[in-house]
C-alpha cells in the first residue's frame, strides 16, 4: 500500500497544497474576526482554536487518502456508495435537528451522511463510467448514471436539504461530459432547465430562446431536431409561468421554502441585504482585518459558517475577494490539469467529480453572499467553520492529490 512513498511525495501537487493552506488560513482569519465581535456567544469563542484542530485532523485525513492506492477506491466504490445510501436512509429515522433530518448527533459531534454520500457518489459514478462496455451513447447507460445520482439526491431532498441535493444533481453534467457524452446531448439536457428559470421574465425567455436556436444552427443539426428541441423549450417556457400562477400561495411558499429561499428567521431579505452591505462597504481595500463593523456588530447571522465570505469582502475588500477567488480558481484549474493528464479514466472522472463538487460549493456560496444565488445553507469549502465539511473537502483534496501522484498509473 505504501510502497515508493518518497517518489510519490515528490509528485505531490504542491500548488494545490499551498492553495489549501492559503484558503484555510484566510478562513481562520475570518473566523477569528467573527469571534472577536461584540456579544459573541461563549460557544463561538473557541471556534478559532477548534478550526485549527479540525484542519490538523483534516491534513491527516488527506494524507491517508493520498497514500491509499487509487485501486482501493475503485474496488470499494460501490461499497462506499451503498454505505452512503444506507446512512442517508437511516438519518431520516433519527430525530430532527433544527427541523431537518440531516445529522447523526454523536455527543458534541454531528455527522452529516450527505457528505459521505457525496464522495461515494463521485466514486460510484467514476467507476461505472470507466467500466468496460459502458457506452454513453446508449440511453440505458446514461440513465444508470442519472440513477446513481438520483437515489442519494432524492434521499437528501427528503431531509430536506435542497442545497446539497443541487450539488448532487450538478455532478451529472460535468461527469457525463468528462465520461464522453456528446456535448449536443448535454446541451439538449440542459436547455429545458435554463428555459425553466428564464421563463419567469419575458426578456430573459426570449434571450434564452435566441441562444438555444443560435447554438442549434451553429451545431448544424438536422431541421427536425432543431424544431423538436425548440418546441420542447417553448413548451417549458410557456407552461412554467402558467403552472406557477395557477398555484396557491401556500404551494408557492412550499416551493420557495423547498428551494431554501426563506431559511433565515429574520427574512431572506434581511440576511442577503446585510451580506451585500458587508461586502459592498468593504470597497477596494476593505476595512482592514478585525475592523469590519458589520462583522464586529454581528449584523449577519452565520458569519463564521455560511456567510464567511462576507467577512473577507468587508475586511479585505475587492482585493481580498479577488485573491481568494484566484486561489480557488488556481486550485480548480490545477485539479483539472490532473484530470486531463490522468492515464486512468476512473481517476480522471473522480477528479472531475471532485472539481465539480468543489466549484458548485464555491459558486453557490459566493453567489449567495452577493445575492445571485438562493440562500441554501451551503458552506464555503476550506473557509467556513466546521469540522465535518472541512474533512469532506480534505478527502476530496486527498483524492485529487492522489490522482495527481498516480496520474501515470493505469490503476
Amino acid at each position, binding site marked *: 500500500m505504501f510502497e515508493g512513498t518518497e517518489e510519490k511525495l515528490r509528485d505531490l501537487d504542491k500548488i494545490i497544497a499551498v492553495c489549501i493552506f492559503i484558503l484555510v488560513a484566510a478562513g481562520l482569519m475570518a473566523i477569528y474576526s467573527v469571534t472577536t465581535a461584540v456579544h459573541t456567544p461563549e460557544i463561538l469563542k473557541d471556534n478559532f482554536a477548534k478550526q485549527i484542530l479540525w484542519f490538523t485532523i483534516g491534513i491527516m485525513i488527506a494524507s491517508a487518502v493520498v497514500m491509499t492506492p487509487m485501486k482501493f477506491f475503485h474496488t470499494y466504490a460501490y461499497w462506499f456508495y451503498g454505505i452512503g445510501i444506507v446512512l442517508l436512509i437511516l438519518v431520516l429515522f433519527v430525530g430532527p435537528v433544527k427541523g431537518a433530518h440531516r445529522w447523526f448527533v454523536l455527543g458534541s459531534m454531528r455527522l452529516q451522511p450527505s457528505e459521505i454520500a457525496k464522495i461515494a457518489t463521485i466514486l460510484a459514478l467514476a467507476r461505472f463510467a470507466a467500466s468496460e462496455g459502458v457506452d454513453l451513447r446508449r440511453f440505458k447507460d446514461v440513465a444508470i448514471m442519472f440513477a446513481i445520482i438520483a437515489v442519494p439526491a432524492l434521499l437528501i431532498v427528503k431531509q430536506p436539504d435542497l442545497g446539497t441535493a443541487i450539488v448532487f444533481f450538478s455532478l451529472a453534467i460535468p461527469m457525463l461530459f*468528462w465520461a464522453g457524452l456528446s456535448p449536443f446531448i448535454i446541451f439538449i439536457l440542459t436547455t429545458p432547465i435554463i428555459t425553466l428559470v428564464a421563463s419567469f421574465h419575458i426578456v430573459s425567455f426570449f434571450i434564452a430562446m435566441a441562444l438555444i436556436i443560435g447554438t442549434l444552427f451553429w451545431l448544424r443539426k438536422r431541421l427536425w431536431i432543431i424544431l423538436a428541441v425548440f418546441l420542447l423549450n417553448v413548451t417549458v417556457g410557456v407552461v412554467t409561468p402558467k403552472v406557477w400562477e395557477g398555484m396557491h400561495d401556500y404551494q408557492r411558499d412550499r416551493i420557495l421554502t423547498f428551494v431554501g429561499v426563506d431559511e433565515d428567521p429574520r427574512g431572506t431579505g434581511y440576511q442577503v441585504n446585510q451580506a*451585500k452591505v458587508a461586502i*459592498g462597504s468593504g470597497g477596494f481595500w476593505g476595512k482592514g482585518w478585525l475592523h469590519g*463593523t458589520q462583522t464586529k456588530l454581528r449584523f449577519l447571522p452565520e458569519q463564521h459558517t455560511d456567510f464567511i465570505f462576507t467577512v473577507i469582502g468587508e475586511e479585505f475588500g*475587492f482585493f481580498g*475577494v*479577488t485573491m481568494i477567488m484566484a486561489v480557488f480558481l488556481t486550485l480548480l484549474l490545477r485539479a483539472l490539469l490532473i484530470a486531463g493528464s490522468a492515464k486512468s479514466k476512473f481517476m480522471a472522472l473522480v477528479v472531475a467529480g471532485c472539481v465539480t463538487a468543489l*466549484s458548485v460549493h464555491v459558486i453557490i456560496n459566493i453567489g449567495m453572499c452577493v445575492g445571485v444565488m438562493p440562500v441554501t445553507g451551503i458552506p464555503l469549502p476550506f473557509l467556513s467553520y466546521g469540522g465535518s465539511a472541512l474533512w469532506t473537502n480534505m478527502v476530496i483534496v486527498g483524492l485529487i492529490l492522489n490522482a495527481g501522484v498516480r496520474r501515470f498509473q493505469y490503476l
Partner: protein
Amino acid sequence: MELTETKKRLIFSAALCVIFFLLLVRFAYIQLYKGEEFLRASEENRIRSIDIEPPRGLIIDRYGTILVDNRPAYALYAAPADLSANDSAYSILASALKTTRPALREWVRKNNRGNFIPIKIERQLDFTTLSLLQERRLDLPSLDFRAESRRSYPAGVRAPHLFGYLSEISESELKQWREKGYEAGDLIGKKGLERRYETDLRGTKGRWHRQADALGRIIGDLTATDNSLFQNVAPIPGKNLLVSIDASLQLHLEKVMAGRRGGAVVLNCKNGEVIALVSKPDYDIELFSRPIPSSLWNQLANDPDKPLYDRMVQSVYPPGSTFKMVLLFAGLEKGLIDPEERVFCPGYYRFGTRAFGCWKKGGHGAVNMLQGLEQSCDVYFYRMGLKVGLKHWADYARLFGFGELTGIDLIGESAGLVPDEEYLDRRYGKNKWSKGLILNVVIGQGDVLTTPLQMAYFAMNIANEGNSFRPHVKRGTQDPLTGAEEFDQPDSVRIAGIRPETYALVKRGMYLVVHGANATGRAAQVPGILAAGKTGTAENPHGESHAWFIGFAPFEDPQIAYCVFVENGGGGGAVAAPIAKGIISLLLNENKLVPGTKRFADAGFER
C-alpha cells in the same frame, strides 16, 4: 464524436473561468460601483444618531431676575426598528402612555427618519409613567429617557401673553421651519416672546453618535478614527433673552388688575422699552409648560372673557377722551385753534337736530383750551372738531402712529382704526354719513379704535416731543456660557412737523389733568413727583364704560409713559388713574420701591 482529454479540460476550465469572472463582475459592481452606498448603509446600520436638545435660553428681566427658567423633565425616545423587533413593545408603551397601539404606530410611522434613529415618543413624562416604564425596561431594552427642559416661572410673573409658551411643532409649521433643523416632536415657541425670539432662544441641536450592534444594543461611542460623516456635535445653548420688564412692577400690576379685565402698558421714554405689560384675565402659564389637554384648551378658547387674548396688544377699543390731544395737535399746528379762545359749555352741544352731551351734565361754563383738556370738556372738543375738520384730525392721528402697528416685538399686534373720509365713504357709502361723526371721533368715540399699547406709545411720543422710540420688550441677549451680553440699539421714531410750542401747550394741559384745580386725573398724583396724563371714559354699547388713563412722569424730564385700561371699569379718573399712581410711585418714588430691586433710575435706565 469523442473529445480529447485536453479539449475537455479546456472546455471545463473555460466554463469555470467564465463563471468566476461573472461572479467577480458582481463583486466589482457591489464593492466598487456601489461601494460608497453600501459603506453608508453599513455606517447607518451601526450608528445611532441621538439629537441632543440644547437648553433653551432663559428670559431675564431688567434687574437680572429670571422670569422664565428651565427645569429638567424627561422625554421618551425609541428607535422604530427596536419597537418593531419586539412584538409587545407597542402594547406596553400604549398602555403606559394611555394611548392606543394604532395611534402609536401611526406616530412612529409618521416620524420615522430611519429605522435606527430614535424618535421622540412622548415628552415630559410624568413621574408615574416614568417609573412604570423604568420597571419594564427589561422588556423594552431600547427605550431611552432623555432629559429635556420644561419651562418654569420662578419669579412668579405669569404674563402668559408676554412670554408665550412652548408646544410641539405643528405640521404646517414644520413645513416652514424644517430647513432650520426642526423635526416632528420638537418644541417651538407659540405666541409672545417665545415665538418672536424663537431663533435666539432655541439654540442649535447637538448630535451624538453611538455605535450599536445588530440587536440595537449600544456598544459605545464612536472613536476618533471613525467616519467623519458622523462627528459628534455639541449642542449650542439658546441665548438668554434680556427683556426690559421690571418683575416687581409687573407683579404689582398683575395683583392690582386681578379679577378685572384690562391691563397696563408702561414704557421707558428714554428708549421705548416695555417696563410692564399686563393683560387680564390671563391663564396659568404653568399649565402650558406640559402638553395641554384639549379640554383645557377648549375651555380657554371658549371663555367669554377671552383670556387667550392680549388685550394690550391684540384688542382694540374706543380710546375715549385720552384721544383728545390728537385734535389739539391738529388744530394748533394748522392754526385753527387759538388756545385762549373760550367755549361756553352748557352741558351739551347742538349739532343739526341732535344734541351731543358733555360728560358733565351741568356743563363746564366758559373754558379755554387748557381748561377744556384739564376738565375734558366734550363741548370744547366738539366745537374745535368742527373747526379743524376730519381730514386734519385723521392726518395727525396717523402722524402719531394710530391706525398702524407700533412695531412692538410681540406677536399678533392690531393696528386699530383711524376713520377718515375715505373710510367713512367706504363704510357708509359716499355722502351717506353725517358730518356730525366728527363730533364722536374727536372725543375718541364712534369709529376710532386703538390698542392700549398705542395709547401708551402716544403718551410717550408726546412726552418725548416727537423724538421717540419704537416700543420693544427685548433689550438684548446674553450668552449663557460666557455671560457676554449684547444689546440692541433702540429703534428711533421721529414724529415730524410739530412745533415745540405745541408740545409744550399740550403737555401743559396734560399736567393740569393731574395737578390742576379741577383735575380729572388727580387720583394719579404722587407726592413729590410731577406727572402729566389724560383720563378717558369710553362709552360702549355693551355695558359699563371703559376706564382709561394715559400719561407720563416726571413732567420735567419724562422717564416713563403708560396706559392703564380697565374694560367696563367705569370712569377713567376714578378707576384707571389710581393704578397709574401706583405705577409712578413704584417706579419713581425711592421710598416705595419693592424691596430687593434696585432703584429704577440706577438700573440701566439711561443705557
